[in-house]
């Protein structure tokens, strides 16, 4: 099986520099059979980053990408509370740089139309659009999107491919919230390896809309790989989830950048 990981945070790997952290991340990826890694964020500290902080995060990821271009894809961190700064960062890191996706986290809920210029710019560049979502029993952060917020965004952009990060964590609800929106794929990363998650996602959305990711270093590779290795699904579906879906989603921007796999 070829495995690409949609969701990694090299900064949790404890090196003194981005290059050292990446080296450690790649060492573990090799051990676990993961070929390519999508990376974003330099720390998990800035949930509502300023324009300066966005640049710092993205500079860190640019260094990682520059040293491990054959293994990683960088996603630019953006914040809908700073739309112009976000557009500038998309231009700097994706249009004029090597990055291939955008990461939206917990600064502002994605049901809010303030996010639209960011989605439009990313879509125009064919960048992969990743939006974190959770639906926590104890309540979300104020700016944290739920899968139901994601549904509102998905309805506004029916022709733009979007990724629902974490499938909302409470995946039985998240899968259902995404079901009516064929433009949305779900990310398996960053929740406990609760048995049945992947089977339900495949049953309700089809294997083409399900993407493996780990959220390592917040998580291990192992618990997240197990969601796919351990699922009772056909091997063809497993391969789709492990890499083919992400590959297909990324192919247009890779072609546009002249990257050959």
């Amino acid at each position, binding site marked *: 099986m070829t495995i690409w990981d949609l969701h990694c945070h090299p900064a949790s790997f404890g090196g003194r520099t981005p290059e050292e952290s990446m080296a450690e991340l790649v060492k573990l990826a090799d051990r676990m059979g993961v070929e390519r890694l999508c990376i974003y964020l330099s720390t998990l500290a800035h949930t509502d980053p300023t324009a300066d902080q966005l640049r710092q995060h993205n500079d860190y990821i640019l260094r990682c990408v520059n040293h491990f271009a054959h293994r990683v894809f960088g996603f630019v961190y953006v914040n809908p509370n700073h739309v112009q700064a976000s557009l500038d960062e998309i231009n700097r890191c994706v249009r004029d740089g090597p990055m291939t996706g955008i990461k939206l986290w917990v600064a502002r809920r994605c049901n809010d139309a303030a996010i639209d210029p960011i989605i439009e710019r990313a879509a125009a560049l064919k960048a992969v659009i990743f939006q974190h979502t959770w639906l926590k029993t104890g309540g979300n952060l104020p700016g944290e999107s739920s899968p139901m917020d994601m549904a509102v965004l998905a309805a506004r952009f029916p022709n733009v491919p979007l990724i629902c990060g974490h499938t909302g964590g409470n995946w039985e609800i998240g899968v259902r919230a995404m079901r009516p929106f064929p433009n949305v794929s779900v990310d398996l990363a960053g929740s406990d390896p609760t048995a049945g998650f992947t089977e339900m996602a495949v049953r309700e959305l089809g294997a083409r809309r399900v993407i493996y990711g780990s959220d390592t270093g917040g998580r291990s590779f192992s618990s997240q790989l*197990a969601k796919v290795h351990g699922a009772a699904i056909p091997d063809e579906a497993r391969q789709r989830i492990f890499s083919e879906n992400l590959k297909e989603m990324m192919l247009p921007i890779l072609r546009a950048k002249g990257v050959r796999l």
Partner: protein
Amino acid sequence: MNARQVILDTNVSLSRYPFRRLPLDETPKLVAKLKQHKVTRALAGSFDAMLHHDLGAVNERTARECKEYGGGILAPVGCVDPTQPDWREELRRCHEAYRMTAIRLHPNYHGYTLADSAARELFADAARRKLLVQIPLEMEDERTLHPRLKVAPVDWRPCAELAAVGPTLRLQILNCRLFPAIKAKNVWFDFSMTEGVHGIRRLTDSVGTSQVVFGSHAPFYYWESALLKVTESGLDAAALCETNARRMLGELP
């Protein structure tokens, strides 16, 4: 990891999780998965013990299920609730009637803490009977619990003191997300919920290399998670998969 390495899984559960069906929640299916991966023994509690009042019936079913469908690898683990009337009879049956070597407690679902006197009495009795006492700190991530049944994780901190009840008390903490600073020869941890970069190494650093044992929390979790963690850790697979657990069970010196 050596392909011939056998595994002693200290953390599986039978019957139905209260809030969803799981792909392997029928015992023969779980046993087939375990055998496929060279599990030669698994300590099997019951999901029923979380919320059922009639623990006598739960324990009887667990013992029977292991005998009838356990394929020779399931060792039944009973549950005792020390806040219930006549709980000592439940403990006696676990030990004498069902020949169990371990009990599994659910203090957070049964409404007591490890510091309560009821818990201490149970620990003392379990120690006299040389039963291993397993305590899952939680059964599911708090963030995904059913909104009408929010159960906070067990506070592990009294464990450090309980470990001193006597050298014959053997405690095993299951489903622990933390890296507790307990170094005691009679307290063990499984790594079913251990996460993050080099998670198992962090756990062995904090509780001791000999105190960490294999636990999958299957069928609630995909069983493969625990197996892959052994590979990812790069640590001594024989110790993590087998010998530490056999020492915990008193089978190796």
